[in-house]
């Protein structure tokens, strides 16, 4: 905004991506998706603000997968670069570190952290990303519906997401009195390489009739390792594996091959990758499919995480256009409560920054050794859930 008013100035947007460190894989995808989006927007003239179209300038910083770096990046974006919005910030603890700066400086910030901690009313931290609690919801629905699955074993990460998951299980089965029960089979660390001992424990519980299925809470690459290993040990032949986003959205479902057999996973962005499957296509709106077709023309990664980042950018653009301003507070007002159509479908964001987005529970099978969608036991809008016990029921 240093260029002053009128149509000449660019709109500055920030991005805090992990380009190194443990989350670097996501940072890499985010950069590519955001760059493709920016180029597309600028080719079309830019973002329309208050009658004039302005070009987009992206300022990106590496948060090194560390909170302190994320925080100083946010501070820099807010004070030195004076951006109108921050398109991405990663990890839950990263979001917590960034939140005060986003709020103080009134910079709406899209986060990919899953913690409810930044979801105070009026927050500038927004997301289209599923929270840990939303993550497990469709799977729990499946337990409710299914006659075979009554009791589930739970394997969760150490740390806050795992805590949230177990708290949800506790609330669902014990407090809310839903049918069935869960058994905590242990916590593992994200960097874990070997899951043999957990698998042994799960097998034992299954053989003793204590559980009928296994819920695994983890994210992407760890989930990939888990699935590969349970498949090697033949666990999928005995019992279904239930999981959230991690099971469907990791790098490439194809890599895991046969291991996807008998896996139930939450698909949100992944649905697009399976859009040629009829059952899946039914869960996606036509408008979303059109937008996705346009996305495919771009030089952007065909990866669920990239779809999510792209959708964030889309919503940001609509927000700015809707607000007719590059002022953070006005953009936020425009974002909250408005229904936007993105390539992942229709979505709204509430005053706590939480989204309501479409999703589906996908049961995978295999064709030879390529995973295919077997059926879609559940689809619909995932409601915003901001705390445990959940304030909103499905």
């Amino acid at each position, binding site marked *: 905004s240093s260029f002053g008013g009128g149509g000449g100035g660019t709109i500055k947007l920030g991005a805090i991506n992990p380009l190194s460190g443990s989350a670097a894989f996501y940072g890499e995808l985010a950069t590519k998706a955001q760059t493709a989006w920016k180029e597309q927007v600028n080719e079309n003239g830019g973002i329309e603000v208050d009658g004039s179209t302005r070009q987009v300038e992206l300022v990106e910083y590496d948060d090194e997968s560390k909170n302190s*770096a994320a925080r100083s990046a946010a*501070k820099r974006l807010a004070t030195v670069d004076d951006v109108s919005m921050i398109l991405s910030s990663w990890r839950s603890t990263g979001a*917590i570190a960034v939140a005060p700066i986003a709020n103080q400086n009134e910079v709406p910030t899209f986060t990919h952290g899953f913690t409810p901690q930044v979801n105070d009313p009026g927050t500038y931290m927004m997301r289209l990303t599923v929270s840990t609690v939303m993550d497990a919801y469709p799977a729990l629905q499946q337990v409710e519906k299914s006659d075979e699955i009554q009791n589930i074993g739970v394997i969760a990460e150490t740390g806050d997401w795992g805590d949230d998951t177990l708290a949800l299980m506790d609330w669902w089965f014990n407090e809310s009195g839903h049918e069935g029960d869960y058994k905590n089979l242990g916590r593992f660390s994200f960097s874990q390489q070997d899951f043999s001992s957990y698998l042994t424990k799960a097998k034992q519980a299954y053989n003793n009739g204590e559980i009928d299925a296994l819920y695994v809470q983890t994210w992407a690459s760890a989930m990939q390792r888990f699935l590969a290993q349970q498949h090697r040990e033949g666990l999928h032949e005995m019992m279904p594996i239930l999981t959230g986003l991690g099971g469907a959205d990791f790098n490439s479902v194809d890599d895991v091959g046969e291991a996807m057999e008998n896996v139930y996973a939450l698909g949100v962005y992944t649905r697009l990758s399976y859009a040629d499957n009829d059952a899946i296509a039914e869960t996606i709106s036509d408008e979303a499919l059109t937008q996705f077709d346009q996305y495919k023309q771009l030089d952007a990664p065909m990866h669920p995480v990239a779809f999510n980042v792209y959708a964030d950018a889309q919503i940001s653009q609509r927000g700015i256009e809707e607000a007719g301003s590059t002022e953070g507070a006005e953009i936020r007002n425009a974002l909250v409560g408005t229904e936007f159509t993105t390539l992942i479908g229709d979505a709204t964001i509430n005053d706590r920054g939480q989204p309501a987005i479409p999703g589906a529970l996908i049961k995978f099978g295999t064709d030879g050794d390529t995973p295919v969608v077997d059926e879609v036991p559940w689809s619909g809008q995932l409601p915003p859930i901001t705390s445990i016990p959940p304030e909103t029921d499905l």
Partner: protein
Amino acid sequence: MSADTESGFANRNLAVDMPGVEWRAVAKSVGITLLLGLLAAPLVAGSSYIGYVALTVVIFAVMASGYNLMLGWPNLLVFCPAALAIIGGVTSALLVNVFGVPYLVAMVSGGVVAAVIGGFIAFSAIAIGSSFEIIIATLAFEEIVYYVFTNWHAVGPTGISNVPAPTAGPLTFQTQLEQYLFLLVMLTISIGIVAVFDRSLTGTLTVATSENEDLLRSIGYNPKKYKFIAVVVGALLLGIGGSLYAHVNGLITPGGFTLDQTVFLLVIAVVGGIRTVHGPIVGAIVLVGLPEVVRMFGLSNMKPYIIGGMLVVVVLFFPRGILGGLYDAIDNRGDLSWQFWK
């Protein structure tokens, strides 16, 4: 020549100086810190980004000063400064948030709790003796602290947020400049503590422990005592640094105080100059500032190469760190008048 030496000796009158603290040297160290710190204050005004960076520099300088006390004087390779810092930070944040204790009291309590834990660490490290075993045992301790905090409800993996800004009686340090001045005072006090230690018999004896324990014992000193003091005082400063971190940033998370942070503090101490009073300040400026410079030149992508390369270069060519190397160069030139600020 010999007359010269003798008069030199008489001037130094070391025999008398040795047991006490060389207060003038301490005053110089403290004065320089305060002076240069105040000169930098205009940069911090407003809510400028450079001011924000300056706050981080000062906080890390305080923590690294504490760590330097453990590494530099008794040469103990204690590998858990981050754990001590977060113990101080969490103590102080909880005291203020939960019990409404005044900030200064909470800060000192944070330091004291860290110092007590530091005492246990010192005790164990001294008993263990072998340097690699000390490294691993303290690293293990750091992991335990991490597990305990992430699993403790009062802290958890997402840490404590909404930690209020530091206060002193009626004063609240809210703006960047206020916080900077407060931090500068704390840094000056820390530097003073390190300088007193350095310029006292205790400091000399602590250095001697790293050189030859048997000899030290044979002349009537207990090396364990001096190592213990260095680690405990170091832990005190780390705890206070952790408290400053929590309250200035408003947030403290266990994940931010693991091995990475320890390594960062180690790098600050070594790059600045182990066993130099001002080394941690120089190290903090370089290591907190460097990424900003890298960013300014649009070399973010190259950062791991730049930082990694710098470490290799420092190790190969400046084994005593920037300040240590500078002092050596000045010493070698034999120009004693320059040593006034050592």
